[in-house]
């Protein structure tokens, strides 16, 4: 990954961009400062920006906010320069994060709403067309995107609005030469007509297959059940699950109830930029409810809105001075009879009591927010995922360093070009810390690759071994938390591997086979034969029983006893097991010197007679080479 920068630095830049963005929304300078401060400490964003987190989303959010700032600038000023800058940062965003589609759709929607509100002006035209023409070309330079902007429906709304705004501009131009009265009717009818035509055309093209169908991630935004049924790989990522309600409060604390207030304030002013805030707020709150990960896109707008609301309140109560005598007199003169009582002693928001009360409670909330953020950050987000910390009974901290131990072992004890197969979650870590090539990593977009790994993990050894040979795998790495009670291990992710593999090879891997007759996912004696014979199961429990007295081996994650006999591994040998057994690395055996297949060889080594070994075996397996 070429884009590697320190997340905290980008966090600082994000706060800066947030200040600029919010200052565009409000005349009060305190709004921007508050929003920037919120952005800096809100857990929703700190989860990505703590030092040591290894994620390009920290960069992406900065780019998101800054692109929006430039966009607002462009709409306000109607200058080509700002539009071009928006496009440039949009291009950078495209290269950094797949979430750029959010911008691609939000900006056209903003323009569309502006047009529908009758707020079209040449400034809108200039900003939008410049952004679209340059930004689309820019995004097409990124190899990952390529021709998507003209093929994929995700991008079609931008193209549609681009066409629409040309027509609107032309209509506006013609209107200059015609009596204005009838024109409004003409304009709206024309918009309706064009949108109808465009939408029909879009559907037609989608159906006829000229345009690629909406990508799966997009579907899962609308139909939350979609991913689970059709694309296990999307549903398998925990961050793609629907958000639980407490998560909103956990990540945003009191901002979440300032948020609607800020949006309401935007409704009161309702200029171009406020429309933008409203649209962004509505869309992203929906999306954040659908996917945990998209909480990240909600956070900036929540900070903006909360900054606006809070600064509104504080400005009202702190800065606003008592109406002086003459203004009061003026007011009284204006509507003397109706509000005659107004001149009585200071009450309402001018009294010191209400000022002190409101500002005091706001300060309290702010302090609580800081405390909450600090607590969340220290507890939930600042523990690096490769080093686990736990508490011993006496309260002292115990560091579980199995990941680094294992990666270091790989680095020291394997040849430079040894290929490691693991589930894709560990791809980056292996690549970065062990410096070895992996079969799949976190950025693998080819579903089949991941499914191949899933198939190898969930099949019998006789099936897996040829797959491993074909892909030149030298070592297989599994994560096993059974000894320690570390629940994020591979056996718990195993069903996803099965499902993803099933998506590609439905007749070879069946999820049902991994459940017992009563529909339970078990690893103990009652586990199904398919489960017991799967490579993942064997690797996880290989020799695990030797740690315990006979018959008492316990898996602390699943909370069950483990079969008394260790599974046998014919095609692999254990290469390394870390201190707490979290990481286990197995070496894939080479082909047998004597041309036997591996189960025979192992049986021979054990001193068993050939006949018996042959009888025990299932279908004979072809050698691969």
């Amino acid at each position, binding site marked *: 990954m070429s884009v590697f920068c320190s997340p905290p630095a980008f966090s600082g830049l994000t706060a800066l961009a947030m200040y600029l963005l919010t200052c565009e929304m409000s005349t009060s300078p305190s709004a921007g400062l508050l929003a920037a401060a919120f952005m800096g400490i809100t857990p929703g964003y700190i989860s990505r920006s703590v030092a040591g987190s290894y994620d390009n989303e920290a960069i992406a959010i900065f780019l998101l906010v800054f692109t929006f700032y430039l966009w607002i600038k462009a709409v306000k000023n109607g*200058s080509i*320069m700002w539009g071009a800058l928006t496009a440039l940062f949009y291009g950078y965003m495209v290269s950094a994060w797949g979430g750029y589609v959010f911008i691609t759709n939000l900006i056209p929607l903003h323009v569309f709403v502006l047009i529908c509100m009758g707020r079209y002006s040449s400034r809108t035209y*200039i900003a939008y067309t410049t952004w679209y023409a340059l930004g689309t070309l820019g995004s097409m330079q990124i190899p990952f995107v390529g021709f998507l902007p003209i093929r994929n429906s995700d991008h079609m709304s931008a193209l549609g609005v681009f066409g629409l705004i040309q*027509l609107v501009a032309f209509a506006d131009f013609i209107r200059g030469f*015609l009596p204005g009265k009838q024109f409004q009717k003409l304009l709206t009818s024309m918009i309706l007509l064009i949108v109808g035509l465009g939408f029909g055309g879009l559907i037609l093209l989608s159906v006829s297959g000229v345009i690629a169908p909406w990508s799966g991630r997009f579907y899962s935004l609308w139909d939350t059940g979609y991913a689970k049924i059709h694309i296990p790989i999307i549903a398998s990522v925990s961050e793609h699950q629907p958000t639980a309600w407490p998560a909103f409060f956990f990540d945003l604390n009191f901002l979440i109830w300032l948020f609607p207030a800020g949006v309401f304030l935007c409704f009161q002013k309702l200029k171009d930029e406020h429309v933008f805030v409203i649209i962004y707020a509505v869309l992203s709150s929906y999306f954040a409810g659908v996917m945990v990960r998209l909480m990240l896109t909600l956070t900036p707008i929540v900070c903006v809105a909360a900054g606006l609301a809070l600064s509104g309140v504080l400005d009202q109560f702190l800065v606003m001075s008592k109406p002086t005598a003459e203004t009061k007199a003026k007011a009284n003169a204006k509507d003397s009879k109706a509000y005659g009582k107004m001149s009585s002693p200071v009450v309402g928001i001018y009294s010191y009591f209400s000022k002190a009360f409101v500002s005091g409670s706001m300060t309290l909330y702010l302090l609580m927010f800081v405390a909450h953020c600090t607590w969340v950050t220290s507890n939930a987000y600042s523990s690096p995922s490769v080093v686990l910390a736990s508490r011993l009974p006496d309260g002292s901290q115990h560091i579980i360093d199995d990941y680094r131990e294992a990666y270091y072992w790989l680095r020291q004890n394997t040849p430079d070009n040894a290929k490691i197969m693991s589930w894709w979650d560990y791809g980056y870590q292996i690549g970065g810390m062990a410096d070895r090539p992996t079969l799949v990593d976190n950025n693998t977009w080819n579903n089949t690759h991941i499914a191949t790994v899933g198939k190898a993990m969930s099949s019998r050894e006789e099936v897996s071994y040829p797959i491993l040979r074909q892909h030149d795998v030298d070592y297989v790495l599994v994560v096993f938390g059974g000894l320690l009670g570390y629940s994020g291990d591979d056996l718990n992710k195993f069903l996803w591997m099965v499902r993803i593999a099933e998506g590609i090879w439905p007749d070879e891997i069946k999820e049902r086979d991994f459940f017992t007759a009563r529909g339970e996912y078990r690893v103990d004696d009652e586990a199904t034969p398919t489960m017991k014979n799967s490579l993942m199961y064997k690797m996880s429990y290989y020799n695990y029983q030797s740690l315990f007295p006979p018959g008492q081996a316990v898996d602390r994650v699943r909370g069950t006893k483990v079969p008394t006999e260790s599974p046998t591994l014919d095609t692999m040998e254990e290469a390394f097991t870390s201190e707490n057994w979290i990481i286990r690395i197995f070496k894939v055996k080479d082909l047998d010197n004597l041309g036997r297949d591996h189960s025979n060889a192992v049986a021979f080594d054990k001193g068993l007679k050939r006949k018996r070994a042959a009888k025990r075996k299932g279908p004979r397996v072809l050698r691969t080479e």
Partner: protein
Amino acid sequence: MPAKRHAASTASAPAPSTTSTLSSGPATLKTNSSVLDITSHVWQQYLANTAQRTLLLDAFMAFLVLVGGLQFVYCVLAGNYPFNAFLSGFSAAVGQFVLTASLRMQTSEPGSGSPSKPSSKGKNARFADEDTEEDTGISHERAFADYIFGSLILHFFCINFIN
């Protein structure tokens, strides 16, 4: 494009009350004038009201439309084999058109007294009481500098993309 003018004129034709004499226009527009009349009226208004520089820009835009249209027709007829090349050529035309249109809007708005502004302002009055931001004066020089900046980026991308 002519189709739209047609639509515009039909919509304006049945307007009941306005005998609509545009103050600056050379010819007057009757309520019951035919489609052709209105079209030619618009055309004459355009010729009369547009400054020489703006006409030049318009000619350039028409040329760009022509170039883009030719490429598109070629793509439809002869296949889109070097798709990159077609795409960058086409989007160069489109982008340049759009940029030129933007430049035209920025430069022709305040000076030439095109009557589009007051009417659009009247429409916006519902939302923003006094749209003072309507005339954030971007000077002609600044507009042209922006235009060059945008064009440079556009053509850099195009050349990079053309393979």
